[in-house]
């Protein structure tokens, strides 16, 4: 190969390489991957309040987003949002465990909450979320009501039981994995206790042991990491799946070495 040709060839390659690196990344859409579940207008404030989620609401723990915009869909004014999820039943009403979370998306007036719905909407009652929006400039506030349909997933993501220690009502919900897969999965559960019908504080002093099993085959998987409390009732560990199919995650929950619940399990089919 002549040197001039070689030089030309190398330049061509470099040019191609340079071209490949010039792709510009567009500005990310803060609502990417989210679908609008329900929206309502705060008429006196002249603002639109909408509820967004990665999927339609279902029984168990999930993250939901509230956006507050003007009519053109822009975040015109700085506002603050507080919520009260409620289930209205025949005789009474109750709330569910929920928590305000730090925003994880680059947008203003997009508020992130974690919520653990305990039962599906249906004949027993219906869910709504009261959203109080406060205009930080004028200090004016208004509450809008967002009705929503909560469905029961095919496999339970939330289970409740009475503590073997003090008979208090405990709610355990799966926060992760959202989509289990073969390999190492982040495993996260959220544990709450019912204090009153309106108050579900996080439980932070439990220890949790997990044992995955394929009930059809009678085998488990190695190297799982028991979830350990992080904050606000969130316990994080690792769960390993060696194949697809039906997996059963057995949980043993203890407090100070004393068993709270030893026959809890969640099924995951993927």
């Amino acid at each position, binding site marked *: 190969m002549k040197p001039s040709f070689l030089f030309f060839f190398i330049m061509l390659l470099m040019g191609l390489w340079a071209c490949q690196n010039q792709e510009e990344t567009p500005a990310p859409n803060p609502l990417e991957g989210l679908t609008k579940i329900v929206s309502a207008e705060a008429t006196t404030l002249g603002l639109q309040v909408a509820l967004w989620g990665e999927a339609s609401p279902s029984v168990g723990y999930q993250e939901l987003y509230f956006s507050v915009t003007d009519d053109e869909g822009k975040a015109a004014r700085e506002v603050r949002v507080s919520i009260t999820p409620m289930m209205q039943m025949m005789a009474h009403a109750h709330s569910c465990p929920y928590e305000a979370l730090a925003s994880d998306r680059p947008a203003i007036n997009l508020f992130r909450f974690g919520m653990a719905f305990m039962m599906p909407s249906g004949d027993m009652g219906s869910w709504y979320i009261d959203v109080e929006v406060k205009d930080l400039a004028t200090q004016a506030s208004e509450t809008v009501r967002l009705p929503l349909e909560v469905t029961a997933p095919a496999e339970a993501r939330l289970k409740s039981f009475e503590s073997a220690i003090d008979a208090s009502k405990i709610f355990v919900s799966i926060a992760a994995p959202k989509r289990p897969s073969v390999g190492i999965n982040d495993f996260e559960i959220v544990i709450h206790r019912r204090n009153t019908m309106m108050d579900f504080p996080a439980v932070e002093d439990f220890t949790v042991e997990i044992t995955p099993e394929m009930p059809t085959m009678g085998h488990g*998987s190695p190297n799982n990491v028991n979830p350990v409390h992080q904050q606000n009732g969130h316990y994080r560990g690792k769960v390993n799946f060696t194949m697809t199919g*039906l997996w059963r995650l057995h949980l043993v929950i203890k407090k100070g070495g004393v068993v709270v619940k030893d026959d809890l399990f969640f099924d995951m089919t993927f």
Partner: protein
Amino acid sequence: MKTSALLLLLVWGLIPKGMAQSDPCPGCPCPSDSLRTLHLDEIVVQSRPELPSLSRFYQTSQLAQTEDLLARMPACHLIRRGSFGMEPLIRGLSAGQINVRIDGMAIFSACTDKMDPVTVYVEPNNLKNLEIKTGTRGSEWGATIGGSVHLQTQDPVLNADRPWMGKIGTGFQSAAQSWQHQLNFNYTQRRLGLRLNGVYRQSQPYRAGNGQTIAFSQFNKANLGASLKYRLNEQSLLKASVLLDEAWDMGYPALPMDVAFARARIYGLAYELYPAKGKLEFLETKVYFNQIHHLMDDTQRPEVQIHMDMPGWSKTGGAYLHTEWALAPQHQLKARLDFYQNVVRAEMTMYPEGEAPMFMLTWPDARRSVGAVFLAYQGKISSRLLLEAQTRLDYALSRLTSAFGRNQLAVFGYAVEGNIAHVLPTVHLGLRPASEKKWQWRANLGYGQRAPTVSEMFGFYLYNRLDGFDYLGLPTLKTEASWQMEASLHHRTKKGATELSLFYHYLPAYILADVDPNLSAMTPGARGVKVYQHIPFAQLLGAELQTSQTFGTHWQWVGQWKFTLGQDHRAQALPLIPPLKSIQTLRYQRPRWSLQIEQEAALSQTRFREDFGENQTPAFMIFHLRGSYHWQFRTQSIELSGGIENLTDQPYWEHLDWIDIPRPGLNLYLNLFYRF
């Protein structure tokens, strides 16, 4: 090495007088490899029946399978899981410890359970040479510690007297009620040769020696080969070849599953050069590609907890450049560059009733790329000594190409992100006297390494029916090595030849699976999980004795004994080591007909590994009787042959037969062939 005068003389000694004079290969363009070599420790079997010699010993019936030939070669045994697809074992080493090549092409099985050793893809009627090289001497075909099996297919004949030649035949066997048919055609012109080769075998479950019918031992198979040779000029030619193999409804009684189908497609294109002068004597370059698709299923099995499908794929593409040089009179050099890439994937899907299917990758998308250089020198280094020196260096890169596969192994704590490299040096040195004597000796020394196999590195819950364990690979496995020596003694007279070989292998970092009590088995009913790992060392020791003698003009006796001892660092026996086996053949040959009686026997194997599912195998002795008659009409001939195998209807099995399934009992067969 191919054509030394020494070897040829030894060969002449083995061929009964009067028979050796027949024209070896009518009309060949005479590349040097058409020479009829038949040497005791680099066995070359000629499949053309007009060349008698030892071929009648190795290939007892025209419709024998390639594995039947292998079973009769010194140093070789077969691991048997069904009546088809037996896996060769050379001096106690098998699978990744040896290399099997077809016409120089790398090709790898697609079955995680080793149901499809690649030796099944070349049928004996398409076989020109079947060559076993023991130990590091086999490194021409790849980094190896155990040796090589090289299957060389028949070339189309060029420029023969007749444009059309061929053979067609059919046969029946009683034990398995099996019909087998084969044909081959050769069409030739001045520059062009075309060869077609086909075999069809259909076999029912066979009847064993105790009268019991072995369920799931049936098989169906069709093999089609086509090759084309085109002479470009006096010195060079092009060769293209296609091998298609289709097997279906194959039973494997020693395994929990059968094979729904197995499909192999093997393609090669080669250019060969035979320079008329200069130091370069021969050059061949070839590109090739092959793929195998294999599907195991258990839908025919009655008591199955969960039905499963286990398909597997293996694709290999490669190229090589092979040259042979005459550096000076009596100094020859072979140099070879090899490159290939193999990709395998095997899946398992289980279908529990009323539940979601369960899926995993038992071979998790593994890819191995290998580049290698091989050099072999042979020459007279003094007036009395001949040196054979070989070296090979392989560089192998293995990786998992799918996230799914990597994630599976991550569960066990292995991060298999990039390439895993293995450098594999092999050295072989052989010495023997340069002069011709009645007594001859040979001494060989070798050192080799081999890379762990896909199963050993990445295998994911591969169930082993023999010991009942699920096997897991270990991605961090290093290479397995072997220091080896071999000494042999030949004795040759006008009436025959005898060879005794002794060998010893010291294998540091021997790869052997061991139980991991922390892991739970996946397969229903499995006893636990074994993980491949290195043991400090293993040793193999053994001997082979083979003799061929003629008595008068009509009688020939061929005797063979082979024996291997294997033990690990704790002086425990290694698994899958056969006991002493002997095969004796006495043949009476007339110009038109022949009669042959054979005795096959093995000692009881008392050195076995219970933790690998083995038990004591009883000794056995069986007899076979064979005969043939042929009619010649000018250029055409008809041959009728038949025989009775296992004359006394013994129920018997060999030590390498998994789970003691008895072999066929009394078997009558009859073959009819027409040649033109």
